[in-house]
Each structure stands twice: as C-alpha cells, then as structure tokens.
C-alpha cells in the first residue's frame, strides 16, 4: 500500500500549514499555494504528512491510499 498527498485546489486557501509541517513534500508557489509532491510518501515522512493533513483548516489536504499496481 502506498500513500500519496493530494490537495483539493478548490478548498485550499493557502493557509500554508502543510508547507510548514512537511516541507519535504510541500513547497509554496509564488502566491503561497501548495505544490504537492504526488509521489508515494516515504515511510519516515508518513507521520508528518498525517500531521499536515490534520492541521489544514480547510481540510483541503488528503492522504490517499493506493493499492500497489
């Protein structure tokens, strides 16, 4: 099972918590909106990714589980 971070661009309002909490996976563009690394989250970052998902005030960030192909 791999997990990937995904942002709902409509819900997102660039609060920026995700980029703060897991900068290894989320960068901010010129306007503060998250550029999310969509590759499978490495094991050592999963806890941080989960924290970022929980912290988003808009519930815009999701950790999606994907069955391995």
């Amino acid at each position, binding site marked *: 099972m791999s997990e990937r971070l995904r942002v709902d*661009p*409509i*819900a997102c309002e660039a609060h920026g918590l995700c980029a703060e909490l897991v900068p290894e996976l989320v960068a901010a*563009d*010129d*306007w*503060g*909106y998250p*550029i999310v690394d969509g590759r499978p989250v490495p094991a050592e970052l999963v806890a941080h990714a989960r924290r970022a998902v929980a912290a988003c005030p808009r519930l815009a960030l999701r950790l999606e589980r994907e069955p391995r192909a």
Partner: protein
Amino acid sequence: MSDERLLAGRRPTGPLGRGAHLSAYGPLGPIAGDPPGLLALAETSGLRGRGGAGFPMGRKLRAVAAARGRKVVVANGAEGEPASRKDRVLLESLPHLVLDGVALAATAVGAREARVCVSAAMARALAAVGGAIAERRDEIRLRLEVVADGYVAGEESALVHALNGGPPRPTTVPPRPFERGVDGRPTLVQNVETLAHLALVARHGAAWFRALGTPADPGTTLVTVSGAVARPGVYELALGTPVGRLAARATPSGPPRAFLVGGYFGAWVSATEADALPLAHDGLRALGGSLGCGVVIALPHGACGVCQTARVLDYLARESAGQCGPCVFGLRAIAGAMAEVARGEGSRATLERLARWAGDVAGRGACHHPDGAVRLLRSALDVFAEEVEAHGQRGRCPSGERVARLRVPVRVAAA
C-alpha cells in the same frame, strides 16, 4: 470533394423540421431500441468525444450504463469557446440530429431523462431545439436547459454543477459525473456534436463511420475556421486531414504566418508546420498541441502573434472560475507578463518568470483551464520567438497592428 455527413442535410433557410430531417438522413432502425447493441456499436465505431478531450464514447457509455441508480444524459451545447461555432450551427440547423443522438445515448445507458443544454448566447439554437423537442415523441423525457456562456461553463463538472442549482463553476473530481452527477445520479455528459455522430452511426454502422478518418481517430469532425480567410465558417472534414488542406478550402487571404489550432486552450502552429499537420487528437497532443474543440484560426503576416496571444491570455485569466489559487493568481501573472512583452517592456527576466509560472500553474487547478492557457502561452513563445525578440529590442510591437484578430467577448459586469 467534401466529407459532409453531419452537414449534408443542412439548409441555409433554417432548422430542419422532423419530416425534413427524416427525409435527409433516413429513419432510425431497430438498433434504436437495443441498449447492448448500441453500446457495442459505439465501441466498435471508435467514436471519440468532440467536446475537447476526445474520450472514447463507447467507454463512457459503458461506465454510465454499469453504474447504479437512475441515469441521466446531459447534452453539452454550452460552447464557451469564442472561436467555436460548430455546436451552435448543429443546434440551429440540425436539432433533430442532435436529439436523435441524445435519445440513442439515453437508451444505451438506461436513462429515461435527458437535459439538452444550450448556451444563453444562442437565441436561434434555443428556438430551434425547443421547436424540435415539441415535434418529437421519444420515450425519453427531453428537457431544454439554458446555460451560462462563460468560458469554463461548459466544462463537464461545471455544467453538472449548474444543473444542480449551483454556479457554473467546476467542482472537485472525483466523483466524476458518470458516478455522481445531476441530482447525485450517474450522468452521461456528451458534446452535442458527439451525439449527432452517434445518430448517424446508428443509421449506417461502424464500418461506414470508420471509412473516413484514421484508425485511432475515425470519422469526420466539425472545425470552425476563422481569421484571415475569405470563407470563415464551420467545415466538416475527415479526421487526419492536414490543416493546410482545410485552410485552402476556407481560402486564406494571403499566406498565413501561423494557425491557432484547437481553440484558445489549444496551440499555435507555424504555417510551414501546419501545412501537413493532420487534424486528429493523438498526433496534435504528441506535439504539445490539441485538436480541442475543432478550431482553426489563420493569423496573417503583418498581424502580431505576441499581441494577439497577450489579449487572449488576459481573457482567459478573467474567465477563471476564481476557485483555485494557482489559476487565479497564476493566469493573472502570466497575462500581465505577456502584456509587458507585447508592449515591448519585457526583459530576459520576464521571459524566465513566464516559463517558471507556466511550469508551476499547469495541472494545479480543479479543471484544465490553466493547462490550456499554459499550452497557448508556451506555443506562442515557441512559434513567435522572433517576434518576442523583436518586441524586446524595439521597445514596442514591430508590426504596430492594433486590430483584434482573435475575438474576445466583452462582458458587462453585473450590477
């Protein structure tokens, strides 16, 4: 020699009534009541969507047919692309062809209800479709819906959103309309031209349909040709026809500098490249272009591709649904920078910013609106590289032309 199939029965005097329609195209046979037969036929025909994405219709029909719940069909006649008139022409002149397709698609997926969406900007089409519905006795309930004419209003999820009583703005997918759409039901959304083709496939079969076009992109397609041509309008051609051959039919007024192919979300192609370039989904996509919604605009020598593109990018920025940061801010920034370049005020740094923003913005909206704008931008910077350079060196547009070649609707803000 023309490849007219859809447009074969078209008359300049107005829409075909039911009787004239049946005389021109013939009646539908028993397949009209055979859902598995229709599904198989759609698949074998290889008919792909004519709304812009080119998705195989057979696959879409099967997905909706297999879903659980009461289905609904949505015919998409929103046509928000300013340079496209093909859907308008079909709805104005051949409404029964479209409605035949709607009824067939509904039968195929097991829907008993269909919403025929026509843009508020198409007065004649609204009248024609309304009149045509009144003449029919389908088992499927047909409802005419007037929809907004904004650029993104015809995007699949935006259309469904509007039918559900919301604003005509895209929604986050998944779930896609085929799973949950109108009233939360499995919804088939198809462009009106795609449905019209289905109406002829049902009459003449898959082999007939595939006799024109290419193996991956069979059949004919409608293309709106405009710009520096003596005979602008909607043409029907076999897929795979080179741009040059289509342009010749429209009689260019002088050798063009370049063509915009696919619409305002498509790509510029230089005249030399365009000459042999086949109009088909896959080939164009491989080149970073797009067949899009079947639009070809001829830009003459003497006109400025940089300035025209700057105007369209400004329009596209204003037409953002305003929901996603990268689109709202990114397209605005891109439009602003391109305007700088057009005014002759752009520098190396401006071009670097444009390239960076293009990379940042693409793929990060809820819909493909920003992707289209980026495609237009990148193709302009590529095809008009010399003009970009000249703007920078001269500090102004070298052509000095002020004519708006690419039509952009003027929208009066609501009070």
